[in-house]
């Protein structure tokens, strides 16, 4: 029996077994804790949210109150990676959700929530409207730049950075432009500019420094300087700010450098996060530890749950899972292609390349090849994969 089929069957079996175990029951002990809530009622944040909600309930037509509540939820969603808060924020803006004449604070919040749902075009439309109304708002241009980078529209991203320079801050522009430059074949110049921002801005908040350091690490990797990259990752980790993006990026670095053994310790206690659970499962798979299938099974059940509500927010992760853990290149390729249609960052490029190579489908990798050529993006890994793809029999 093919190994793919065997792996797929084993995982389906695991999922099925865990589904079988779950049957409604009657707990016997009143003191049994069934659920732990993210916030206690006495938590200051819970109190703040309660007050905001009460104010919105008292003034349902006040866009400022609603936007304030939505913003509070949005920040929680960012910090916790919990989509329920996005839903709460959206519900707070319900009155104006579909209205083109919505007031300014609502439009901006609506854009932020839409991008979190991966509705990039909707978010960009709202950001454009918000930017017209208040061009001095740095946040708007930063987000537009980020979304344009996600869509590999580097020209538009450069325009957004320029808007920052014109209406907001010079240093902000420097970071923004370095970020774009790092994507389009100017990694070493971008690295120098980013390092300059980091050196000059010593009073920045830890989260801001973490952002710059993570970008420095990524730029160093693009320049083929692994040692330097790791130094930046370690600096960023030393800031002791919980950050899933950083953890994911560093875990990927370890996996790429044959150091899967270090991943479980790095990501200890992070199994609730799907993106980090993927890295744990990948490490288990490399290490082949006994009982190592648990993370992969947990991930599979979350993908199944997401599929039930037809969520497509996990395409990149699911493609990697299918490809590297289940060895199902064909399905992984379909997911990676669907993902590439929505978002085009280097990570998205990589999984599509890898899936296309595993499926021996050179044609499927073509869009990434043309992206790589037209953007002149530097990345030793992507370049190597492009060569491997080119060597496939046509």
């Amino acid at each position, binding site marked *: 029996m093919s190994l793919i089929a065997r792996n797929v069957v084993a995982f389906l079996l695991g999922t099925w077994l865990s589904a079988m175990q779950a049957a409604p029951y009657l707990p016997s002990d009143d*003191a049994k804790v069934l659920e732990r*809530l993210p916030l206690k009622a006495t938590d200051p944040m819970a109190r703040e949210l309660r007050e905001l909600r009460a104010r919105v309930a008292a003034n349902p037509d006040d866009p400022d109150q609603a936007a304030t509540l939505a913003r509070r939820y949005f920040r929680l969603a960012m910090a916790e990676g919990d*989509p329920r808060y996005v839903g709460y924020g959206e519900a707070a803006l319900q009155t104006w959700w579909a209205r083109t004449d919505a007031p300014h604070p609502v439009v901006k919040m609506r854009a932020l929530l839409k991008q979190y749902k991966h509705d990039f075009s909707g978010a960009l439309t709202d950001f454009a409207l918000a930017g017209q109304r208040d061009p001095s708002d*740095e946040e708007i241009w930063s987000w537009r730049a980020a979304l344009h980078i996600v869509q590999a529209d580097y020209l538009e991203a450069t325009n957004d950075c320029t808007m920052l320079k014109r209406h907001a801050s010079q240093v902000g522009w420097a970071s923004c432009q370095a970020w774009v430059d790092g994507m389009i074949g100017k990694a070493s110049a971008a690295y120098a500019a980013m390092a300059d921002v980091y050196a000059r801005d010593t009073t920045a908040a830890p989260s801001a420094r*973490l952002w710059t350091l993570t970008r420095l690490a990524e730029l160093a990797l693009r320049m083929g300087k692994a040692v330097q990259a790791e130094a930046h990752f370690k600096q960023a980790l030393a800031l002791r700010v919980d950050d899933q993006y950083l953890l994911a990026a560093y875990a990927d670095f370890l996996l790429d450098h044959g150091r899967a053994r270090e991943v479980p310790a790095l990501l200890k206690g992070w199994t609730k996060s799907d993106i980090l659970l993927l890295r744990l499962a990948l490490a288990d798979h490399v290490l082949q530890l006994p009982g190592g299938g648990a993370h992969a099974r947990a991930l599979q059940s979350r993908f199944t749950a997401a599929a039930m509500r037809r969520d497509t927010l996990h395409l990149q992760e699911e493609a990697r899972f299918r490809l590297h853990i289940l060895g199902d290149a064909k399905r992984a390729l379909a997911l990676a292609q669907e993902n590439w249609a929505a978002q085009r960052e280097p990570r998205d490029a990589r999984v599509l390349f890898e899936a296309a190579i595993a499926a021996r489908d050179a044609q499927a990798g073509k869009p990434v090849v043309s992206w790589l050529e037209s953007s002149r993006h530097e990345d030793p890994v992507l370049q190597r994969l492009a060569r491997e793809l080119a060597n496939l029999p046509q």
Partner: protein
Amino acid sequence: MMRFICAMFLAFYAAMAFAHKASDSYLTITPDDAVAHIDGQWDIALRDLDFAMGIDADGDGEITWGEVKAQHERIAAYALARLSLRLAGGICPLRVVEHLIDEHSDGSYAVIRFTATCSQPRGRLDRLDIEYRALFDLDAQHRGLLRFTHAGATRSAILSPEQPTVTFALHDGATPTSGRWAEFSQFVQEGVRHIWIGFDHILFLLSLLLPAVLVLRSRIWQPVAAFRLAGWDVLAIVTSFTIAHSITLTLATLEVVTLPSRFVESVIAISVVLAAANNVYPLVDRARWAVAFVFGLIHGFGFATVLGELGLRSSTLLIALVGFNIGVEIGQLAIVLVFLPIAYWLRATWMYRRMVVLGGSVAIMLIAAVWFCERAFNLALWPV
């Protein structure tokens, strides 16, 4: 500067996947055959119920069973006020019959079992309208995941703030019958597929069939004289294997007997080793049908695991069981039909007797021995 970097820092996360699951509730609606009586089950996350109506009475951030129990009436009132069922336009009042708890992938859920008895308007009872309003006012990302089972067919729907209602046609002539036939043929295909990708079953069968065109004389395999003899031997082996695995497949699927899958898989591997070993050191000759029967029993449990993971509901169990079994037989028959003429034609050659029967059996033994070690000791010896 600060504001910019903070914004950039957030913008970092553009396009990143959620770290958690969004809010879903799971709603099952099952009208009985007479339609006017409906059974339902609704699983709502405790976290969502707490957000909607406050369950954590002591505010310590932990929801205990005691707290849930004390709120059962309020939970029922909250939920039932947000679900309405109408049969052909006539309202179906809901009544909670049981409160339970269940675990889903993202936490504990309150399970509300309910019944509805519909007031019967005149005219045909040809449609059921379902309207769902839970949590949408609080969480715009909430979804109600609905499974509707009627007349042997299951349909599903995703209820959202944009689409809070759904209508199901009842006794919709086309669906149940064609649905059943489609389901049946799907299970037949799965059965065929399983015997073909289930290398261990093929190897077991082949090990027993290889010497069918030979006969043991003074502990040495000699070609049989007539096709008829080989044919009977094959028929006996395949029939007893089929009867045996049908018995256990049925018993295991009906959950009369269940065995741990690791044990089953390990014994299946041993059965392949032994069947192949018998060709190298012949102990059993004409009675290989008995070997096929005894080990066929364990292979049936293996089939049952596969059938189980295809997802079974009690209403379609019989269809699944019969369809899958027929599929397995078709797959088996195809192997035999290809194997027998070729083997018979080659039976007198040195190549067949030495290389295929002896060499092939040794190779099968080795492969199966590796499987056994993998399965019994949970090792991964194949590079994956």
